[in-house]
């Protein structure tokens, strides 16, 4: 019985390896259930999952870096020359 339980239940060290698949909705149904069952009983893994969510959200909010004035100038010039060549201009 104890052995059976061990095979059934995920331990924390396994849970942290399944977090991305869980968030990507790539876990098979049964695995997903085991994962969620573990979370309900484990505040640490619940916090861990939340930390991963926050990490991903923070990455998604990274603002684009500003172009330097020189780069803006350069790309404006390039744009003009590419347009002047036409859509099928020389490569």
């Amino acid at each position: 019985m104890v052995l059976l339980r061990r095979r059934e239940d995920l331990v924390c060290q396994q849970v942290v390896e399944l977090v991305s698949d869980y968030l990507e909705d790539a876990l098979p149904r049964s695995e997903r259930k085991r994962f969620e069952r573990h979370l309900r009983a484990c505040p640490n893994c619940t916090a861990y999952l939340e930390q991963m969510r926050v990490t991903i959200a923070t990455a998604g909010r990274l603002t684009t870096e500003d172009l330097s004035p020189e780069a803006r100038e350069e790309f404006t010039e390039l744009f003009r020359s590419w347009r002047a060549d036409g859509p099928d201009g020389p490569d």
Partner: protein
Amino acid sequence: MESDVELLARLRDGDEQAFVILVGRYQGSLLRVARTFVPSDAVAEEVVQDTWMGVVRGVDRFEGRSSFKTWLFRILVNRARTSGVREHRHLPLDPTEPAVSPDRFDGTGAWAEPLTPWESDVDDRLVAESWGPALRTAIDGLPERQRDVVLLRDVQRLPSEDVCEVLGITEGNQRVLLHRGRSRLRTVLESELQTRGR
């Protein structure tokens, strides 16, 4: 903020302002991804410039079946592949890279110490902004294949099937790389927090 689609419409009309905004929006990510495929920063810059030329010349042919981002990165990777590529797309993945250092767990695989909670701090928008640079540095420090996947999937938010297509990797590989990249970033944020104090 204007959407890519709006900027593209202006670009079709020859609006150079719209072009410069688009370049600003994607230049950093393009350079980083390009750098994976070519041997130097200089070549990466050429490839990226070439990509923008492809955008300007090809914008009339872009049909919007994929998102602009996917189209853009697809052009990039195609150009990069034809200009002196390091072929490493099919290297096997290192099988052992735990998401969390094993010494954080006890003999049964449970957390040895309770996790220090920090996630609610970071979810605060202001705090998140101040963490941006640290995370940016951490992303730049990822192994390159993890970095590409994280950049496209989490920073640019491309759908996973587009990430696979652009990078020419399988869905399974993508998920492993994403998982490892994200796990490393989480660790960086965690240690950053401990350094800064609460």
